[in-house]
């Protein structure tokens, strides 16, 4: 390993050519996980002592933990010693030089999804210095954000430039001892994003397009921290409708959100990691911990997710409603096809008075897939006047797939109002025939019916993204009917 370190040190003395956009070339650490691995990563990132301690604490805790076996998903045991925990982005030399070198099938999918031409190259992994447009766009965004006082940078950068902020909030919502995958992430996270919106500032743009271009190579252990100070607002968009391939099968990300008094955070995700082939070979295992703390009065955190990718999804974006009158929302569309398995939902923990939460979950299962909604609504004794509304709808395509709902309710305050509605429907041949009979072909008919089913969630997405998400659903379910 020491020679690898030497090599790496040589490389890290190079300057960042493109700021946040590209990282320097790095070596890949050999497979295996022990304290040295954690120390290596921390050292490579030139992290302060407190962060190394923090990572080590997480690692030691992780060693004592058991992988959760309660989710309704099945996969062969993961050998955590067989994984490399420091996989560097491909160097520009290994990447395609232009779109001509990219798999035409991938490009055809971009076309179907309506991805703007200038973004296709970046998404297909064409060497970034060939993608001039994206770089200049990113730079422009960065200046505009800086003018508003918004901090938006990689979390490694933030550790160096704003250590006091990172130290104050990192792990404050998802502690490094929280759960098996969160602990693993805390120990070995590679990089991620840091967003800080100062008091009273409305972030001047959706943190979307910018991020989308940067979303490549975020690595398998991504860490995101967003802090919205008093009275601020930010809309953050993660992921991408374009299919994302990655040689790492295991992904364990952590996202933490903090909203202070009167702050609002809107976090939207489109997840389209490689789901594996039609026979269930390959595909990403996506074990994600996402949690937001509404710490301040009248604060609001809203999660919207469109999950179509990954072989296995294990994900429960949650809200801890601490401040009085705070609001938590969860809008979700989860699509599973072929052999995909998803166990996803949310947790709404009502602690403050008059806190409200809304859950709208739409699960669509096709092929031989399994789709589970798992949600917890917990009303604590002091949450006087808390209200929750949950709606969980499942749609089945064909008769070999499964849809499951696991709602958990814990109410410890008598004044609380909790409502839960659930429906299961089968996409009707009658519906498809009706649309066919009006001249609409089957593929478009399925897409129309499914999008109608998901409408309440799509309207929560930023406009431009909603359009892409609709197309994505059509593409994800292609060939699943008729």
């Amino acid at each position, binding site marked *: 390993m020491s020679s690898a370190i030497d090599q790496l040190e040589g490389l890290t003395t190079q300057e960042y050519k493109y700021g946040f956009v590209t990282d320097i070339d790095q070596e890949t650490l050999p497979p295996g996980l022990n304290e040295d691995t954690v120390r290596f990563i921390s050292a490579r990132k030139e992290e302060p002592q407190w962060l190394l301690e923090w990572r080590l604490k997480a690692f030691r805790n992780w060693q004592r933990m058991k992988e959760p076996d309660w989710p309704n998903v099945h996969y062969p045991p993961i050998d955590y010693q067989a994984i490399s925990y420091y996989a560097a982005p491909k160097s520009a030399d290994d990447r395609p030089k232009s779109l001509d070198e990219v798999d035409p099938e991938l490009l055809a999918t971009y076309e179907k999804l309506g991805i703007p031409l200038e973004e296709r190259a970046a998404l297909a992994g064409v060497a970034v210095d060939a993608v001039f447009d994206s770089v200049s766009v990113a730079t422009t965004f960065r200046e505009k954000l800086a003018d508003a006082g918004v901090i938006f940078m990689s979390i490694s950068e933030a550790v160096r430039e704003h250590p006091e902020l990172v130290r104050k909030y990192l792990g404050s919502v998802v502690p490094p001892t929280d759960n098996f995958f969160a602990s693993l992430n805390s120990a070995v996270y590679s990089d991620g994003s840091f967003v800080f919106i100062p008091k009273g500032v409305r972030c001047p743009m959706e943190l979307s397009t910018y991020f989308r271009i940067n979303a490549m190579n975020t690595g398998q252990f991504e860490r995101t921290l967003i802090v919205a100070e008093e009275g601020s607002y930010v809309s953050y968009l993660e992921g991408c409708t374009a299919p994302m391939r990655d040689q790492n099968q295991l992904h364990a990300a952590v996202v933490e959100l903090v909203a202070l008094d009167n702050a609002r955070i809107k976090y939207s995700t489109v997840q389209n990691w490689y789901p594996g082939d039609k026979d269930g070979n390959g595909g990403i295992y996506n074990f994600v911990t996402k949690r937001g703390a509404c710490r301040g009065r009248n604060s609001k955190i809203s999660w919207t997710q469109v999950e179509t990718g990954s072989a296995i999804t294990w994900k429960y974006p949650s809200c801890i409603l601490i401040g009085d009158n705070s609001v938590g929302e969860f809008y979700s569309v989860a699509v599973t096809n072929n052999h995909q398995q998803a166990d996803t939902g949310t947790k709404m923990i009502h602690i403050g008075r008059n806190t409200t939460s809304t859950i709208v979950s739409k699960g669509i299962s096709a092929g031989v897939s399994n789709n589970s909604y798992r949600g917890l609504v917990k009303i604590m004794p002091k949450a006087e006047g808390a209200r929750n509304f949950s709606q969980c709808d499942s749609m089945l395509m064909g008769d070999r797939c499964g849809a499951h709902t696991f709602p958990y309710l814990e109410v410890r305050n008598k004044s609380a109002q909790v409502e839960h509605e659930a429906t299961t429907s089968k996409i009707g041949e009658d*519906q498809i*025939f009706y*649309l066919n*009979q009006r*001249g609409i*072909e089957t593929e478009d008919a399925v897409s*129309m019916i499914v999008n109608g*089913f998901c409408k309440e969630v799509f309207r929560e997405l930023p406009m431009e993204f909603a359009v892409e998400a609709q197309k994505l659903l059509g593409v994800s379910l292609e060939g699943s009917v008729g």
Partner: protein
Amino acid sequence: MLQIRNLRVSVDGQKILRGVNLDIQPGSLHAIMGPNGSGKSTLASILAGRDGYEIEAGSITYHGQDLLEMDPEIRAREGIFLAFQYPVEVPGVTTMYFMREALNAVRKHRGKEELSAGDFLRLARQKIKPLGMEAGMLKRAVNEGFSGGEKKRSEIFQMSMLEPTLGILDETDSGLDIDALQVVADGVNALRSPDRAFVVITHYQRLLNHIVPDYVHVLGDGRIVRSGDKTLALELERRGYSWIVPASGQAAAAGA
């Protein structure tokens, strides 16, 4: 424009149509009557291309083409429109969006340009008004929460938008009160033209007071057992079906 020859159809081994012959010329309106279970709706479904039927023998030629070889959406684009007996709800999809997609698919097939959102809306408003419906209906999800009468009027609205060459009405009168019946009939009559034909499937004669047929056919036991002009419908109203349709066959078919 449409020739049905010796059409034999079964469902799950049960024979439903046992040799239907029918010729339809442009501009004509054919009423198809018959007791429950005589195969009327099956005939409508076969024309529109619904799955789940086994064509054992016979042919259907539409404008010189083999209709049975065409997918349902192609039939629709080629001008076949079925007003459903039970229009289907499509939650979350507005009638406006649905109809615009449909109309543009049909227009594209016919070599016409797709309509812009503005032009579409103007056209839709113009077509919806005579049917006694508010333009607000366009913003509602397809058939969701519609009353029986609203569903049937929406079918006629869709037909007037898509301007088919062959309109098939499958028991459009069922579940309609007398006022709604008149509105629907007016809608159909307004669409009658020398190059457009209709097949009107109905159980009762009363619809035919409002939509006057050129021909009336009685379907019994999977065959057309009698054809005549509009006076045949009146006679059926007076005498029922039993004098033409053999009781045993009727019972057997109803069992299907």
